[in-house]
């Protein structure tokens, strides 16, 4: 690599890192507790617990829906969801309108057997951490901004890998030059930690970027695929009376026999049309449980309208979520995720230190050169 090329990549690495440093530190620091948000919510008492039941007969979906509406009078249901890791709980989302603002949504957990209200979901200190991590309380603009910071992070990683060669080619792998200055020791740690965690950092960074585009992708799906699925129902008004949810669930299962319902979106919500229920079905393997398949059902009759696999970009979004959260490999993977997150904080922090140390080193040199020039008699 020529000296000029190294200088160029060095400038790219320095500035992409510097611009994104504060936000990456925020993402890493808030991401750390989010890895354990289930455990923290449980510890702080914000995670509703299902009741113990002798019988296994589950409440019907309609019973849960009725309980949800009774728990939040005057509001409407948006979604009902079933978490595969929490089989004893059914979650209901209510809002002032079916297309109400996400911040106005109330999420409540109900017992899957008795349909009894267990308590609110997604409140407490972890909600603040989550908002800081996803959009810094700035809505869609904040999400897209953090996505842009994620892209800068990816450029910083790639340029860092390219610079690894000129900086370490004369060193053994993992050499830490203890006898050198503190700046050199931190340069060695920065290079070593950065290069061994490069794949994880790129995957988590880029999947985070993809997650910030979720709403844009959903809008694209609604404008194209969903629009073509509901085209035969064009001009039909929103349902005056909703079909029984038990019928909706039963019919959705016949459209996707080997799958179970992950969540139902009510007519008019962002995940479906104004006239249809959408049942999002999931498989039972680690991969297929992430790849949802929508089944559209008539809002009044509950009859199946259409069912198609999601487009590649939405499947990529669904696959990117576990790869970003690290919640798909049990507690050991969560601990490893947290350790890698902390190592990334060290890389970002040491990079900032190296930049400051180099500036400090250059400043006296510049002063000396200026003093020498000034002392030359004219």
């Amino acid at each position, binding site marked *: 690599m020529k000296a000029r090329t190294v200088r160029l990549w060095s400038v790219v690495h320095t500035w992409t890192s510097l611009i994104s440093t504060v936000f990456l530190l925020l993402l890493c620091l808030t991401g750390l507790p989010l890895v354990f948000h289930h455990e923290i919510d449980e510890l702080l008492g914000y995670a509703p617990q299902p009741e113990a039941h002798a019988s296994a007969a589950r409440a019907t979906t309609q019973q849960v829906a009725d309980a949800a509406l009774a728990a939040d009078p005057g509001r409407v249901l948006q979604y009902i969801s079933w978490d595969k890791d929490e089989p004893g709980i059914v979650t209901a989302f209510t809002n002032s309108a079916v297309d109400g603002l996400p911040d106005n949504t109330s999420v409540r957990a109900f017992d899957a057997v008795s349909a009894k209200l267990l308590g609110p979901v997604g409140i407490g200190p972890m909600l603040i951490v989550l908002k800081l991590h996803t959009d810094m309380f700035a809505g869609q603009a904040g999400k897209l901004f953090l996505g842009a910071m994620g892209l800068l992070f990816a450029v910083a990683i790639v340029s860092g890998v390219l610079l690894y060669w000129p900086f370490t*080619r004369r060193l053994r792998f993992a050499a830490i030059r203890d006898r050198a200055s503190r700046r050199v020791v931190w340069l060695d740690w920065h290079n070593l930690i950065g290069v061994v965690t490069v794949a994880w950092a790129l995957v988590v960074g880029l999947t985070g970027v993809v997650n910030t585009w979720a709403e844009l992708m959903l809008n694209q799906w609604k404008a194209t695929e969903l629009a073509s699925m509901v085209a035969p129902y064009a001009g039909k008004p929103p349902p005056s009376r909703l079909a029984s949810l038990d019928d909706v669930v039963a019919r959705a299962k016949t459209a996707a026999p080997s799958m179970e319902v992950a969540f139902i979106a009510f007519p008019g919500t962002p995940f479906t049309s104004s006239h249809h229920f959408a049942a999002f079905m999931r498989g039972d393997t680690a991969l297929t449980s992430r790849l949802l398949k929508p089944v559209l059902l008539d809002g009044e009759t509950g009859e199946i309208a259409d069912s198609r696999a999601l487009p590649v970009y939405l499947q990529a979004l669904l696959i990117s979520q576990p790869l970003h959260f690290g919640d798909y490999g049990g507690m050991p993977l969560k601990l490893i995720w947290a350790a890698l997150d902390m190592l990334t904080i060290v890389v970002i922090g040491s990079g900032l230190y190296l930049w400051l140390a180099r500036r400090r080193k250059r400043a006296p040199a510049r002063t000396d050169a200026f003093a020498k020039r000034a002392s030359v008699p004219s």
Partner: protein
Amino acid sequence: MHGSRGRSRLWIRVFAAPMLFACATITGLLAALLWGAIGQYVAWVTVGAPVVFIAWVWVRRRTQKPEQFGQTLHGK
């Protein structure tokens, strides 16, 4: 010709270990997603490898004298 072969050998020496860690990490991340419970065990080992390695370097550096812990390719 000779120079370029030496250069590529040096390139491999510099990037072989990082590439190994990168391949292990990617394998683990996908294994947990595709291979169920066995995939989880694979992920713990392979995604955790960089963490264990960094911890090993740190411990080794603290327990050995600076001269003993590799510096340059030529021992300078």
